[in-house]
């Protein structure tokens, strides 16, 4: 387990030990296999296939989104 670092997830400050975006999702209580989830890391979309191989760093800004009602 790596050292905890400070990141921002959906606008909220967190300390995380997740080694990858896939692990971060699990830390957040989200099932990475669930359809409809998309992730941006530091302003760029990370494709689902790369979640397990994409690491986080001190100061990383993560957005985790899904479709919601909209007009």
């Amino acid at each position, binding site marked *: 387990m790596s050292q905890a670092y400070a990141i921002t997830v959906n606008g909220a400050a967190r300390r995380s030990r997740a080694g990858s975006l896939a692990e971060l999702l699990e830390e957040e209580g989200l099932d990475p296999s669930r359809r409809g989830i998309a992730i941006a890391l530091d302003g760029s979309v990370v494709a689902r296939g790369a979640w397990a191989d994409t690491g986080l760093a001190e100061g990383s800004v993560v957005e985790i*989104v899904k479709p919601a009602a909209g007009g």
Partner: protein
Amino acid sequence: MKESERTNLPVNDQQDRDSLTIAGETLGSRLFIGTAGYPNQQLLLDSLAASGSELVTVSIRRVGLEGYAESLLDLLDGRYRLLPNTAGCTTRKDAILTAELGREALDTNWVKLELIGDRETLYPDVEQLVEAAAELVEKGFVVLPYCNDDPVTCRKLEDVGCAAVMPLGSPIGSGQGIANPAMIEMICSRAGVPVVLDAGLGTASEAALAMELGCDAVLVNSAVAKSENPVRMAEAFKLGVAAGWSARASGRIPRRKYAEPSSPQLGLIGG
């Protein structure tokens, strides 16, 4: 579509009359529906079914903030083509990232591009809108921009490669209908891509008017979702769109200043 093509539509050709093609994809309904603001999930689903729509809009939002417990994707995918929007975005950067997240989340390169310039009127920020549209087209998106009822803006959006233009009838959610019918008609007559009347409609007759003015489709949300009977209003909009489209295709009579008797004058008794 050109004027001559519109008025020469074969009346009995159901396919020509009812289907719409955007970016090479054929849609069987000219009514697009938004999924926000329904009293509950069942009324949303029933309203979508009653509308006959094949294309429904969704937003892209942070997890944990969604309205419904079940995933919208699980509810709607496979039954409707989902059109992610960039609603609420006020910068080109946010709109483009939201579009890219929507593409990843929904596995579609279609996007309803919204770039809001003012929170109170929800009017588009035209300058950023055109730039963002160009950038998204460049990135391979099928861009359907929500825009002003302004023929110059619509032309610019078309010129940068948008697959349709979606001028507002009046401010989003206002129910004011089509504030400037003459300009919507002007936009339709000049557009080389489908025109979708987006935003501001309050009731079904306004959808019919949009189609009579030359629009290719109508996008509605609040007028259905927030009506007293969303399912019935959804059906009313379906009928309104169909009536307006058929009327447009049929070639209305000209307006005259004075009466024109419909019964023959010859053989009138008492003369």
